[in-house]
């Protein structure tokens, strides 16, 4: 008996009668006739070597669950990893909206049928504008590293200078992205690192002054820095930067901005960062999203590379509508004459970040910033009391801080291995990236950690460093 052809639930026209009818309609007797334009020698005549399919839905669910069950995670462990991705609380309403099928499955529809999506983007920009105390944002970018990279290229286009200064404590991964992005087959932008003080982490202002000539397009500052501390000279750095005619680009963590001053108010001309901290899960790094904000000035607006959705009116009096702002800026409008390039990025996460800021309001952002700083300071104090364990860089910090284990005789790798036995993910190992800090780790504490969690961390570290 001949086997019946398989009808795939996601390929409805595999119903044999329908398929036959359609083939007849288009005048073919064999489906391969559809491919007559592809020369035989370019066709693939074998079968792809792929695993046998798990055809029914239950089997694929069970199979995938089993694979994912192998991953330890922050719901069954305490997680103190940060370094560009941190565990914050994602409110239920954020998950609810991020999983709305309309948003999940929409794409580039126009402002009438996709009115809600355009409004949600407008609101994301508006809410982030309040956080950054600036006026102008585009729809989001791949991640904060892209935002930093593009900010520097915006600066380069604004003042036609081909050098940027970055702090010596910059996130090394971010620096890798920037290096590739500022490189060029014909005219690269030079990246120069500014020295830093190994005791405080702060930028060496004499070195900055020496390097800050009129050939510098921008100075990039992370505040809070990669190593967690606040750059307390930020205002002065900004003044020096602007005096040299360069753009002052500040990379910030938006969840800090309820309590920490917006960079615009200490001189940033371009604010950028990653908004994964606003209502998103860690998702193994899959929930990052980048933003750039500037003041309302055509000098900056004209240099954004991504789409901008502007509020306008419609033919119905009083109704909100939306339009594309300066579309010719983008590579969609002008191909290689556009600003850098644009494309699909992180729309759903921007909508979710908007939901988060709407829920939190000014009070919520103030409170979450306060709680984070309190918990992180408490943790640092607790850990510094452990014999042999030191908190490095004697400078105020936001949620991350450097913990050194040199005096314990243990490496970070050993400590973290020990912590895993207590169901704790210890801090990011800095011993390769910043060997001058010895055996140090970057610990991250947020509003998800309770006093009990932090006491447990101290207890576990004590145990891990005294293990034979």
């Amino acid at each position, binding site marked *: 008996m001949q086997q019946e052809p398989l009808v795939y639930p996601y390929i409805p026209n595999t119903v044999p009668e329908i398929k036959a009818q359609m083939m007849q309609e288009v005048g073919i007797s064999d489906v391969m006739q559809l491919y007559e334009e592809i020369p035989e020698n370019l066709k693939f005549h074998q079968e792809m070597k792929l695993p046998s399919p798990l055809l029914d839905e239950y089997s694929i669910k069970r199979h995938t669950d089993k694979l994912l069950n192998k991953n330890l995670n922050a719901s069954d462990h305490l997680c103190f990893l940060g370094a560009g991705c941190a565990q914050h609380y994602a409110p239920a309403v954020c998950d609810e909206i991020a999983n709305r099928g309309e948003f999940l499955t929409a794409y580039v529809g126009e402002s009438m049928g996709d009115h809600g999506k355009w409004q949600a983007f407008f609101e994301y920009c508006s809410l982030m504008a309040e956080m950054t105390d600036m006026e102008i944002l585009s729809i989001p970018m791949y991640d904060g590293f892209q935002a930093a990279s593009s900010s520097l290229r915006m600066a380069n286009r604004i003042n036609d200078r081909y050098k940027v200064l970055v702090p010596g404590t910059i996130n090394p991964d971010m620096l890798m992205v920037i290096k590739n992005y500022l490189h060029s087959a014909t005219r690269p932008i030079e990246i120069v690192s500014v020295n830093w003080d190994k005791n405080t982490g702060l930028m060496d202002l004499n070195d900055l002054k020496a390097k800050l000539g009129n050939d510098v397009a921008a100075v990039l500052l992370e505040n809070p820095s990669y190593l967690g501390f606040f750059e307390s000279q930020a205002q002065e750095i900004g003044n020096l930067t602007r005096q040299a005619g360069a753009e002052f680009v500040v990379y910030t963590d938006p969840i800090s901005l309820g309590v920490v001053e917006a960079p615009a108010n200490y001189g940033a001309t371009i604010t950028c960062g990653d908004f994964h901290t606003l209502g998103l899960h860690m998702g193994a790094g899959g929930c990052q999203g980048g933003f750039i904000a500037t003041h309302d000035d055509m000098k900056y607006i004209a240099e954004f590379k991504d789409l901008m959705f502007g509020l306008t009116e419609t033919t119905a009096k009083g109704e909100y509508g939306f339009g594309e702002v300066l579309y010719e800026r983008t590579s969609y409008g002008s191909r290689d004459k556009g600003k850098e390039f644009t494309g699909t990025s992180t*729309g759903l996460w921007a909508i979710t970040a908007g939901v988060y800021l709407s829920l939190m309001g000014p009070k919520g952002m103030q409170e979450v910033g306060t709680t984070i700083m309190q918990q992180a300071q408490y943790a640092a104090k607790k850990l510094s009391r452990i014999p042999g364990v030191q908190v490095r860089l004697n400078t105020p910090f936001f949620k991350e801080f450097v913990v050194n284990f040199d005096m314990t005789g243990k490496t970070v790798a050993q400590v973290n291995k020990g912590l895993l036995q207590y169901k704790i993910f210890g801090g990011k190992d800095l011993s390769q990236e910043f060997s001058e800090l010895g055996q140090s780790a970057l610990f991250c504490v947020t509003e998800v950690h309770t006093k009990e969690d932090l006491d447990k961390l101290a207890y576990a570290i004590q145990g891990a460093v005294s293990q034979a």
Partner: protein
Amino acid sequence: MGRDPQTLLRKFHQARWDEPIIFELSVPGERGILVPQAEPEVVQEVGNGVGVLPGFLQRKKAPALPEVNQMRVNRHYYHLSQETLGTDVTIDISQGTCTMKYSPKVQEHIASRHPGITEVHPLQDPCTMQGILEIYYKVEQFLKEVSGLDYFTFQPGGGAHAVFTNASIIRAYHEARGDRKRTEIITTMFSHPCDAATPNTVGFKVITLMPDESGYPDLEAMKAALSERTAGIMITNPEDTGIYNPRIEEYVRAAHAVGAICSYDQANANAVLGIARAREAGFDLCHFNLHKTFSAPHGSMGPATGATGVKEFLAPYLPVPRVEYDGQKYHLNHNYPESIGKVRSFFGNFNVVLKTYMWIMQHGAAGLKEAAICSVLNNNYMQKKIAQIPGVVIRYAEGKRRLEQVRYSWEKLYEDTGCGTDDVNRRLVDFGIEHYWTSHHPWVVPEPFTLEPCESYNKDDIDEYVAVLKEISREAYEDPEFVKGAPYNAASHKPLHPAIDDPELIFVSWRQYQKKKGSK
């Protein structure tokens, strides 16, 4: 009564809530959510926490966010979602070139709910995330089969980002050979704009080939443009027109002859899964949009993944870390000194890679090929029906079979009635159909619209879609002004300024709007 069984038309009206901007819902004092507070012992130890900040770093004025209770925030965003036409609610044959296929819910539920992905930190010790690395590694093996190429990375966060990565790899390859003369990239007008924009971003001069009378990129023009200055060619096939270029091998051979690298934009590879591959056509690099061909949803423009694939000789330049397997355990290998470094944080959008894994595992080799065949069958069926609609013109390749999509033209409708593609596009929503994709700029095909009835849509969906276009064509011939005034039943009406270029009219944030307009 349901949809009219004769005309296949619906009496549709989209949700239209006249929804205020979230700031207008603010009631001072309301809270949307409460936040954990530090315990008294913590406060006792460290005080208010923020006192350690130098004065200039303390926020003086709280951010002027709206103050809205939780139910109202939730309702507000529900309203906005209802005013959006995703593939879950509309026959999204509209967004041609984008492959708006069904994203199976079983994939979505796992990706958004399983703590083994949602609560994983990307810097965890690899031994604690073996499941993630295994899936990552296996999808790489799958795509090697699909493309015939040797290595993949999933770090790029979108299709254009993968093309940017490819351009970066081409640059790194020539630089590693000490060949700095190669400063030009050749692409074609019907390739995606990113094939022109990303090489420009990495510092190449871009040469764009126009189509000849048959719609193919001009081979003679390309041969003339090729030289020892050519770093690479970056093209797609089939192009946005849906026309497969049967002489593609000659283009690739000519480029290789001058030492250029050949990069294949396969953002949309839906027509050729298991049928034709990058390797057989001679390409050195390719990329797939996992959110198109491999079923992950488009998420209102992301998160997404552009999977970049390379031949062995280009592997040293791939971004790091790379996922490797020693027969027992999966590892992250950062040690590739010639790598272009990184293009994105960590290892990309794993959520998208997971959905790709599940989709391929549910179909296998035969299922993938079936998806390709049905997408091309659907397209050929639809083309035949649309060709009969008054006002439609199909340029190029007469008598030749197109693959998964067609770039149509309302050129004749426009000449006859004054209604162009933008008018039809607005009217489309009144029938419950998402706006269609016209074309990237410039409009080489006049009054364009690009449709792609991928394998997710059944015959009835296609028939309904065609019926709607036919109805709009009829309306245009009978009452063009009516079509020009559309939409009438959508979430909002025709914007007065769909293209905003006057600085005075730019309002991209609520505060900018209020400042310029004065408080309303």
